[in-house]
């Protein structure tokens, strides 16, 4: 009777001959939880690149800094009016930065290209109270219109 019971027990044990996976599963689960908590799915960092960052301007809007700008340039003045930022270029003025400026710049670039590819720089002259977002929007409009040299005035 007893020997029969022993045999049954042995035959059951022999079925679990593989490695014990429990510690591995524990560790793998820990690694998984670490990655889930430590990972951010925020969109990757994006940049707008500029090679003519700052141009010091004097009282007569004359660039005095070391940054190089083309001889001919467009000055875009940004000023805060209430909740909006207005852009002024010579006689042209926009009520906000919703798209008028981008359209104007693209038209200007088209004209310049027809005039023997005349290269023209842009100097963005934001007022002190203009939010950084509007400065970036203006800069993006300039780059989208394919203006290469775009500088920022830091005193005017």
């Amino acid at each position, binding site marked *: 009777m007893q020997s029969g019971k022993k045999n049954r027990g042995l035959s059951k044990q022999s079925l*679990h001959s593989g490695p014990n996976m429990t510690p591995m599963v524990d560790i793998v689960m820990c690694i998984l939880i670490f*990655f*889930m908590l430590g990972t951010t799915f925020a969109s990757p960092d*994006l*940049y707008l690149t500029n090679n003519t*960052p*700052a141009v010091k301007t004097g009282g007569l809007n004359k660039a005095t800094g070391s940054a190089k700008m083309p001889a001919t340039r467009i000055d875009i003045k940004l000023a805060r009016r209430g909740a909006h930022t207005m852009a002024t270029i010579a006689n042209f003025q926009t009520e906000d930065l919703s798209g008028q400026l981008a359209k104007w710049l693209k038209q200007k670039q088209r004209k310049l290209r027809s005039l023997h590819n005349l290269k023209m720089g842009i100097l963005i002259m934001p007022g002190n109270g203009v939010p*950084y977002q509007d400065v*970036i929007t203006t800069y993006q409009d300039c780059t*989208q219109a394919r203006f290469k040299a775009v500088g920022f005035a830091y005193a005017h």
Partner: protein
Amino acid sequence: MVKRGMQPMHDDHVNVTPLIDVVMCLIIFFLVCGQLARGESVKGVHVPIAKHAQDMAIKKHELIVNLVPHKPLDYRDQPTIVVFQQDVLPDKLVQLMRQEKRLDPRTKLVLRADAHLPYKFIAPVLEDATEAGITNVNFMTRR
């Protein structure tokens, strides 16, 4: 008729092999698709939106300058300048930039400023970069 070959195994335990397969796949997914929080980025900065911004091809030689608003939703005071996880006084920033430029001539500035900050706080950083001879400036944005 007698069956030959191996006898089928009868295991009372749960087969964990598919579980490990799935978990391994998840780990690889997180490794590839996710990115660990970057050390240089400081919380509390909502960078501006730019639809046409691009990812930087080479993320080397970066000098990340964070402009963190002094208080949340208060943009009137001078923001805190954070570089290499340390607060930097506005007067000392140009010195730091010069030092970095001297150590690595290919240094490029990455400006990580809050979208709501007035330009009067941004301009001095650009001025400092020009003075330090850093002409490559990258504005960090989001879509």
